[in-house]
Protein backbone atom coordinates (compact mmCIF):
# COMPACT_ATOMS: atom_id res chain seq x y z
CA UNK A 1 0.00 0.00 0.00
CA UNK A 2 1.38 3.39 -0.98
CA UNK A 3 1.32 6.02 1.73
CA UNK A 4 1.34 9.79 1.61
CA UNK A 5 1.92 12.30 4.39
CA UNK A 6 -0.91 14.82 4.72
CA UNK A 7 0.46 17.89 6.53
CA UNK A 8 -2.71 18.09 8.65
CA UNK A 9 -3.83 14.49 9.09
CA UNK A 10 -0.57 12.54 8.98
CA UNK A 11 0.36 9.43 7.03
CA UNK A 12 -2.56 7.95 5.11
CA UNK A 13 -3.06 5.45 2.30
CA UNK A 14 -2.87 6.91 -1.16
CA UNK A 15 -6.48 5.89 -1.77
CA UNK A 16 -7.56 8.79 0.47
CA UNK A 17 -5.91 11.32 -1.85
CA UNK A 18 -6.57 12.83 -5.25
CA UNK A 19 -3.92 14.28 -7.51
CA UNK A 20 -4.62 17.90 -8.38
CA UNK A 21 -2.05 18.65 -11.08
CA UNK A 22 1.33 20.30 -11.14
CA UNK A 23 1.76 23.46 -9.08
CA UNK A 24 2.82 26.27 -11.40
CA UNK A 25 3.16 30.00 -10.89
CA UNK A 26 0.53 31.85 -12.92
CA UNK A 27 1.81 34.77 -14.97
CA UNK A 28 -0.07 38.03 -14.50
CA UNK A 29 -2.79 37.83 -17.19
CA UNK A 30 -2.92 41.65 -17.38
CA UNK A 31 0.74 42.12 -18.18
CA UNK A 32 2.03 38.90 -19.76
CA UNK A 33 2.19 38.30 -23.51
CA UNK A 34 -0.29 36.06 -25.32
CA UNK A 35 2.52 33.61 -25.88
CA UNK A 36 3.31 33.39 -22.17
CA UNK A 37 -0.37 32.99 -21.31
CA UNK A 38 -0.90 30.29 -23.96
CA UNK A 39 2.14 28.45 -22.66
CA UNK A 40 0.75 28.60 -19.10
CA UNK A 41 -2.70 27.39 -20.18
CA UNK A 42 -1.71 24.67 -22.65
CA UNK A 43 1.82 23.44 -21.97
CA UNK A 44 2.87 20.94 -19.35
CA UNK A 45 6.36 19.83 -18.46
CA UNK A 46 6.41 16.04 -18.68
CA UNK A 47 10.16 15.63 -18.10
CA UNK A 48 10.85 13.48 -15.03
CA UNK A 49 12.32 15.22 -12.01
CA UNK A 50 11.29 16.87 -8.77
CA UNK A 51 7.87 18.45 -9.26
CA UNK A 52 5.63 20.51 -7.01
CA UNK A 53 2.12 19.05 -7.17
CA UNK A 54 -1.29 19.77 -5.74
CA UNK A 55 -2.79 16.90 -3.74
CA UNK A 56 -6.16 16.69 -1.98
CA UNK A 57 -7.02 14.69 1.13
CA UNK A 58 -10.69 13.84 0.55
CA UNK A 59 -12.00 12.95 4.03
CA UNK A 60 -10.76 16.21 5.54
CA UNK A 61 -10.96 18.44 2.47
CA UNK A 62 -7.29 19.45 2.75
CA UNK A 63 -5.42 20.79 -0.30
CA UNK A 64 -1.65 20.77 0.01
CA UNK A 65 1.57 20.72 -1.99
CA UNK A 66 3.73 17.63 -2.41
CA UNK A 67 7.23 17.82 -3.81
CA UNK A 68 7.61 14.54 -5.68
CA UNK A 69 10.47 13.09 -7.66
CA UNK A 70 8.57 11.73 -10.65
CA UNK A 71 11.61 9.75 -11.80
CA UNK A 72 11.78 7.73 -8.58
CA UNK A 73 8.11 8.25 -7.56
CA UNK A 74 9.29 9.39 -4.12
CA UNK A 75 7.58 12.18 -2.20
CA UNK A 76 10.24 14.45 -0.71
CA UNK A 77 8.00 16.62 1.47
CA UNK A 78 4.44 17.88 1.79
CA UNK A 79 3.16 21.17 3.15
CA UNK A 80 0.22 23.54 3.08
CA UNK A 81 0.58 26.15 0.32
CA UNK A 82 2.27 29.23 1.75
CA UNK A 83 3.62 27.36 4.79
CA UNK A 84 6.60 25.61 3.20
CA UNK A 85 9.08 27.48 5.41
CA UNK A 86 7.56 25.91 8.50
CA UNK A 87 8.34 22.38 7.24
Amino acid at each position, binding site marked *: *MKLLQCPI*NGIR*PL*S*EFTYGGEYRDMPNPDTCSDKEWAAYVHYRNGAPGVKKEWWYH*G*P*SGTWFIAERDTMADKVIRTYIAGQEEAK
Partner: protein
Amino acid sequence: MQDAVLMSPVAFAHALRKPVSGEVNGMETALSFDAADVEASRNKTLSICDVSNLNRFGVKGPQAANWLQTAGIKLPETTNSWTPQDNGSLVMRLGNTEFLLEDRPENDLTRTLNDTAVNQGGVHKVMRNDAAFIVSGELTPALFSEVCAIDLDGATLEENRLVMTVIAGVSATLLKQTLNGQSVYRIWCDGTFGPYLWKTLLGIIEEQGGGPVGFNFYYSLT
Protein backbone atom coordinates in the same frame (compact mmCIF):
# COMPACT_ATOMS: atom_id res chain seq x y z
CA MET B 1 -50.61 20.73 5.52
CA GLN B 2 -49.18 18.32 8.06
CA ASP B 3 -45.94 19.04 9.84
CA ALA B 4 -43.18 17.06 8.18
CA VAL B 5 -41.36 14.50 10.29
CA LEU B 6 -37.87 13.83 9.10
CA MET B 7 -36.72 10.27 8.80
CA SER B 8 -33.23 9.19 9.71
CA PRO B 9 -31.06 8.99 6.58
CA VAL B 10 -30.63 5.33 7.53
CA ALA B 11 -34.34 4.64 8.10
CA PHE B 12 -34.87 2.59 4.94
CA ALA B 13 -31.90 0.40 5.79
CA HIS B 14 -33.50 -0.25 9.18
CA ALA B 15 -36.96 -1.03 7.86
CA LEU B 16 -36.43 -4.73 7.08
CA ARG B 17 -35.59 -5.36 10.73
CA LYS B 18 -38.87 -3.83 11.89
CA PRO B 19 -37.48 -1.78 14.78
CA VAL B 20 -39.64 -0.02 17.35
CA SER B 21 -39.51 3.51 16.01
CA GLY B 22 -40.19 6.85 17.58
CA GLU B 23 -39.60 10.53 17.05
CA VAL B 24 -36.53 12.13 18.61
CA ASN B 25 -35.63 15.73 17.86
CA GLY B 26 -38.23 15.71 15.09
CA MET B 27 -36.67 12.70 13.36
CA GLU B 28 -38.20 9.25 13.07
CA THR B 29 -35.59 6.85 14.36
CA ALA B 30 -35.11 3.26 15.52
CA LEU B 31 -35.53 3.22 19.30
CA SER B 32 -34.94 -0.50 19.72
CA PHE B 33 -34.36 -3.51 17.50
CA ASP B 34 -34.84 -6.27 20.05
CA ALA B 35 -35.35 -7.04 23.73
CA ALA B 36 -33.06 -5.16 26.10
CA ASP B 37 -31.10 -8.27 27.12
CA VAL B 38 -30.50 -9.23 23.47
CA GLU B 39 -29.27 -5.73 22.67
CA ALA B 40 -27.05 -5.77 25.76
CA SER B 41 -25.52 -9.03 24.63
CA ARG B 42 -24.89 -7.64 21.14
CA ASN B 43 -23.41 -4.50 22.62
CA LYS B 44 -20.92 -6.55 24.61
CA THR B 45 -19.71 -8.27 21.44
CA LEU B 46 -20.11 -5.67 18.72
CA SER B 47 -22.99 -3.33 17.97
CA ILE B 48 -24.00 -0.35 15.87
CA CYS B 49 -26.56 2.31 16.72
CA ASP B 50 -28.02 5.05 14.52
CA VAL B 51 -27.85 8.43 16.25
CA SER B 52 -28.37 10.64 13.20
CA ASN B 53 -31.22 12.35 15.06
CA LEU B 54 -28.95 14.16 17.53
CA ASN B 55 -29.00 17.90 16.94
CA ARG B 56 -25.91 19.38 15.32
CA PHE B 57 -24.55 22.78 14.46
CA GLY B 58 -21.76 23.44 11.97
CA VAL B 59 -19.89 26.72 11.61
CA LYS B 60 -16.79 27.84 9.77
CA GLY B 61 -14.91 30.99 8.90
CA PRO B 62 -11.99 33.03 10.23
CA GLN B 63 -14.13 34.47 13.06
CA ALA B 64 -15.97 31.23 13.90
CA ALA B 65 -13.79 30.46 16.93
CA ASN B 66 -14.29 33.95 18.39
CA TRP B 67 -18.01 33.76 17.74
CA LEU B 68 -18.33 30.43 19.54
CA GLN B 69 -16.19 31.60 22.46
CA THR B 70 -18.35 34.69 22.82
CA ALA B 71 -21.31 32.32 23.11
CA GLY B 72 -19.54 30.71 26.07
CA ILE B 73 -18.45 27.54 24.32
CA LYS B 74 -15.25 25.79 25.30
CA LEU B 75 -13.24 25.02 22.15
CA PRO B 76 -10.60 22.39 21.39
CA GLU B 77 -7.25 24.10 20.92
CA THR B 78 -5.98 22.09 17.98
CA THR B 79 -7.33 20.88 14.66
CA ASN B 80 -8.65 17.30 14.59
CA SER B 81 -9.57 17.24 18.25
CA TRP B 82 -12.74 17.50 20.30
CA THR B 83 -13.80 18.58 23.75
CA PRO B 84 -16.96 17.95 25.77
CA GLN B 85 -18.92 20.81 27.25
CA ASP B 86 -20.08 20.70 30.87
CA ASN B 87 -23.52 19.58 29.71
CA GLY B 88 -22.10 16.70 27.64
CA SER B 89 -22.36 18.33 24.21
CA LEU B 90 -19.45 17.60 21.88
CA VAL B 91 -17.45 20.32 20.16
CA MET B 92 -15.23 19.05 17.33
CA ARG B 93 -12.59 21.14 15.62
CA LEU B 94 -12.52 19.89 12.02
CA GLY B 95 -10.03 22.50 10.80
CA ASN B 96 -8.37 25.69 11.98
CA THR B 97 -11.58 27.56 11.28
CA GLU B 98 -14.28 24.89 11.18
CA PHE B 99 -16.32 23.41 14.03
CA LEU B 100 -19.06 20.85 14.48
CA LEU B 101 -21.17 20.71 17.64
CA GLU B 102 -23.47 17.88 18.66
CA ASP B 103 -25.90 17.78 21.56
CA ARG B 104 -27.07 14.98 23.75
CA PRO B 105 -30.87 14.54 23.39
CA GLU B 106 -31.59 16.53 26.57
CA ASN B 107 -29.47 19.56 25.55
CA ASP B 108 -30.49 22.48 23.39
CA LEU B 109 -27.15 24.20 22.81
CA THR B 110 -27.09 23.54 19.07
CA ARG B 111 -30.76 24.48 18.71
CA THR B 112 -29.97 27.83 20.32
CA LEU B 113 -26.99 28.37 18.03
CA ASN B 114 -28.97 27.35 14.95
CA ASP B 115 -31.63 29.90 15.89
CA THR B 116 -29.08 32.64 16.52
CA ALA B 117 -28.66 35.11 13.68
CA VAL B 118 -25.07 35.69 12.61
CA ASN B 119 -24.53 39.37 12.07
CA GLN B 120 -20.81 39.50 11.56
CA GLY B 121 -18.40 38.73 8.76
CA GLY B 122 -16.15 35.69 8.84
CA VAL B 123 -18.74 33.41 10.45
CA HIS B 124 -20.68 31.03 8.23
CA LYS B 125 -23.17 28.45 9.38
CA VAL B 126 -22.81 25.04 7.74
CA MET B 127 -25.87 22.91 7.01
CA ARG B 128 -25.36 19.39 8.35
CA ASN B 129 -27.13 16.25 7.13
CA ASP B 130 -24.92 13.65 8.75
CA ALA B 131 -25.60 10.02 9.26
CA ALA B 132 -24.14 9.31 12.69
CA PHE B 133 -23.42 5.99 14.36
CA ILE B 134 -22.17 4.62 17.64
CA VAL B 135 -20.06 1.47 17.34
CA SER B 136 -18.94 -0.40 20.43
CA GLY B 137 -18.05 -3.81 21.74
CA GLU B 138 -15.08 -6.06 22.37
CA LEU B 139 -14.58 -6.85 18.68
CA THR B 140 -14.50 -3.25 17.45
CA PRO B 141 -10.80 -3.51 16.47
CA ALA B 142 -11.65 -6.47 14.22
CA LEU B 143 -14.36 -4.41 12.51
CA PHE B 144 -12.14 -1.42 11.86
CA SER B 145 -9.27 -3.58 10.67
CA GLU B 146 -11.55 -4.73 7.85
CA VAL B 147 -12.95 -1.38 6.76
CA CYS B 148 -10.40 1.25 7.75
CA ALA B 149 -6.88 1.59 6.37
CA ILE B 150 -5.35 3.31 9.38
CA ASP B 151 -4.55 1.62 12.66
CA LEU B 152 -7.08 2.68 15.28
CA ASP B 153 -5.74 0.29 17.86
CA GLY B 154 -2.93 2.53 19.09
CA ALA B 155 -2.99 6.09 20.33
CA THR B 156 -4.63 7.49 17.17
CA LEU B 157 -7.86 8.40 18.96
CA GLU B 158 -6.55 9.00 22.47
CA GLU B 159 -6.48 12.36 24.23
CA ASN B 160 -9.63 13.65 22.55
CA ARG B 161 -8.24 13.40 19.04
CA LEU B 162 -10.50 12.82 16.08
CA VAL B 163 -9.65 11.31 12.74
CA MET B 164 -11.00 12.08 9.30
CA THR B 165 -10.46 9.03 7.14
CA VAL B 166 -12.15 6.61 4.77
CA ILE B 167 -14.29 3.86 6.27
CA ALA B 168 -15.49 1.23 3.80
CA GLY B 169 -14.82 3.69 1.00
CA VAL B 170 -16.78 6.55 2.61
CA SER B 171 -15.19 9.74 3.95
CA ALA B 172 -15.99 9.84 7.64
CA THR B 173 -15.11 11.54 10.90
CA LEU B 174 -14.30 9.23 13.78
CA LEU B 175 -13.64 9.67 17.47
CA LYS B 176 -13.64 7.64 20.65
CA GLN B 177 -15.56 8.81 23.70
CA THR B 178 -16.90 7.45 26.94
CA LEU B 179 -20.67 7.15 26.95
CA ASN B 180 -22.55 5.82 29.99
CA GLY B 181 -19.22 4.57 31.33
CA GLN B 182 -18.47 2.61 28.17
CA SER B 183 -15.81 3.34 25.60
CA VAL B 184 -17.51 3.79 22.21
CA TYR B 185 -16.56 4.93 18.73
CA ARG B 186 -18.53 7.67 17.05
CA ILE B 187 -18.78 7.92 13.26
CA TRP B 188 -20.21 10.71 11.14
CA CYS B 189 -20.53 10.63 7.35
CA ASP B 190 -22.59 12.37 4.71
CA GLY B 191 -26.22 11.32 5.14
CA THR B 192 -26.52 10.04 1.58
CA PHE B 193 -23.83 7.44 2.30
CA GLY B 194 -25.51 6.48 5.58
CA PRO B 195 -27.54 3.47 4.39
CA TYR B 196 -24.55 2.00 2.55
CA LEU B 197 -22.25 2.45 5.53
CA TRP B 198 -24.86 1.05 7.92
CA LYS B 199 -25.40 -2.05 5.78
CA THR B 200 -21.68 -2.60 5.24
CA LEU B 201 -20.75 -2.22 8.90
CA LEU B 202 -23.75 -4.24 10.05
CA GLY B 203 -22.84 -7.07 7.65
CA ILE B 204 -19.42 -7.39 9.27
CA ILE B 205 -20.82 -6.87 12.76
CA GLU B 206 -23.26 -9.77 12.30
CA GLU B 207 -20.49 -11.99 10.96
CA GLN B 208 -18.71 -11.29 14.23
CA GLY B 209 -21.76 -12.22 16.30
CA GLY B 210 -23.02 -8.71 17.04
CA GLY B 211 -25.96 -6.70 15.74
CA PRO B 212 -27.87 -3.42 15.80
CA VAL B 213 -29.04 -1.67 18.94
CA GLY B 214 -31.64 1.08 19.13
CA PHE B 215 -31.31 4.68 20.20
CA ASN B 216 -32.79 3.89 23.62
CA PHE B 217 -29.83 1.67 24.40
CA TYR B 218 -27.61 4.70 24.92
CA TYR B 219 -30.07 7.49 25.61
CA SER B 220 -33.13 7.18 27.81
CA LEU B 221 -35.87 9.55 26.79
CA THR B 222 -37.95 10.96 29.59
